[in-house]
């Protein structure tokens, strides 16, 4: 399972008046969950659809394990994709939806039962799709993606419509699949979920790449200065003690809280001890993914 790398290179899609994806390049490694992030309208779905040969790029290329999707000999055995929750005929039962795919892909019929079991939909197998809740539809989509036991999984907003229990289930499933050496690419705008789920992130806005890399690196790369939150009943005393430290900037935050930048927490603690100032809290603040994301995409979201 070493050749499941996704490589997007100079990918561009121009609609009549809109440049939806603009010279986008990134790569996605096997064995990890990669989060694909961007504000609404950033071009995430268009990018995934170009990767899967559903939309023709204006220029550039996207390959999976070195081949374009259209050139894969057995696409379902290589790539499983979940694109929108509602892609089944309303009047067809869940099990029949999967059997239709099995027939077209030359997979044995029993795979349909197996993947339904995997996603916990066996009790609803013979129910028509129109009777499925949004969460059940997502599960059916994941089941369809797993039919060919693919080494690459591509999911567009899979957490939409799942309840907290369902989200936790999906997180476990995707992380387990990545640990088996598969490539997992998940687009989402749910940042908190992505922080728990993804090992790597690719962040785009306006169809352009903003940042890509391991989650931790991307988050820290945004941390130019350390922030430390300090709470003390003697704010004035602490301000006086810290003003002697080179590079320290002190911003009062009210409620006996100061935000200190330019000095690490141990140095602040030491200065407070030397000055005899009582501390109630000393917290180094790391920007989270949400902060990074909002900073990177500020002013780039919305209707284009």
């Amino acid at each position: 399972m070493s050749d499941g790398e996704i490589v997007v290179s100079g990918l561009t899609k121009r609609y009549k008046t809109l440049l939806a994806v603009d010279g986008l390049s990134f790569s996605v490694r096997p064995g990890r969950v990669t989060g694909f992030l961007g504000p609404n309208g950033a071009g995430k779905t268009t990018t995934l659809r170009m990767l899967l040969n559903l939309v023709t790029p204006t220029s550039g290329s996207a390959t999976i394990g070195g081949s374009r999707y259209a050139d894969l000999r057995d696409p379902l055995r290589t790539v499983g994709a979940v694109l929108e929750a509602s892609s089944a005929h309303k009047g067809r039962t869940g099990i029949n939806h999967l059997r239709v795919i099995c027939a077209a892909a030359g997979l044995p019929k029993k795979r349909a039962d197996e993947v339904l079991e995997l996603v916990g939909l066996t009790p609803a197998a013979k129910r028509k799709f129109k009777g499925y809740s949004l969460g059940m539809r997502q599960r059916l989509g994941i089941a369809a993606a797993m039919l060919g036991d693919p080494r690459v999984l591509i999911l567009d907003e899979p957490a939409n419509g799942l309840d907290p229990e369902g989200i936790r289930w999906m997180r476990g499933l995707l992380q387990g699949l990545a640990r088996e050496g598969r490539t997992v690419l998940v687009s989402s705008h749910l940042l908190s979920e992505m922080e728990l789920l993804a090992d790597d992130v690719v962040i785009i806005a306006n169809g352009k790449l903003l940042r890509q890399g391991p989650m931790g690196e991307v988050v820290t790369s945004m941390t130019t200065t350390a922030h430390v939150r300090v709470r003390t009943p003697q704010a004035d005393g602490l301000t006086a003690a810290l003003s002697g430290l080179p590079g320290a900037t002190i911003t009062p935050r009210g409620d006996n809280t100061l935000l200190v930048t330019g000095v690490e927490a141990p140095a602040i603690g030491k200065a407070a001890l030397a000055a005899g100032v009582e501390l109630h809290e000393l917290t180094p603040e790391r920007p989270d993914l949400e902060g990074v994301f909002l900073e990177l995409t500020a002013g780039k979201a919305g209707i284009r």
Partner: protein
Amino acid sequence: MRLVRSELLKVRTVSTWWVFGIIALVLWALATGVNWISTAVLVNPPEGTPNDDAQFNAVREAANVAANLYTSGQFFGLMIVMLIGVIVVTNEFAHQTATTTFLTTPRRTAVILAKLAAAGIVGLLFWLGTTLLNFLVAPLILGLYDVPSQLGTSALWQAILLNGLAYLIWAVIGVGFGVLIPSQLAGTITTSALYIGGFFAGAIVLNLLADKFGDWWNNLQLIVPPLASGLLVTGTDLPGSPPRWSGAAVLIAYALVAGVIGTLITRKRDIS
């Protein structure tokens, strides 16, 4: 081949086929009733009917009366089969299953060919069904008017088999139109209107032109597809009408054009 099986499974696992089957059955009963009446008129023409009209006399030949009954239900049957062809394609867009279908099979030409084959098979099944019904009913009606069953006449069997060809071709035309008009509502309404409207408008306009400018204009029946399929089932060639094979050729040409244009469009279309 597995794509055709998948497409047939798609048809089989939703209610469309039996809903259309019931509609086809009702329309077949209606058509057969009308044909019963016309049989009565043809066998015992009312007083004062001129007996020197070559076409009328040809239609009255026992083989052709029988052909009309054994291919009863063609007009609406073909429309139903065409609509099934339209729906086989437009379902994919109406229910957003095109994504899944083209993910499973990125070779889009193969998908359309499978749909053509599956719709053709369904079309032939509808032909088989109505033909079996006609085999039950036609001998009874013929018997009422003391016309022999005609089952030994080759003209009758030609009509029955050409009728099957018409069912096959109209299913293919339906698929072609489905690709051209991916919206299900627009696709079904447009094709039905063209089919029914084309039949009546074509017949009326050509009749007028033939009356005014001469019988040559009747040959243009050929280029109006619903009239062309009627030619296939007349039994023997009728005087004043184009030969039957030409009707088949024109229909096949329409089916090819619809199928090829549809395939080319599908290959290029963005699925989103």
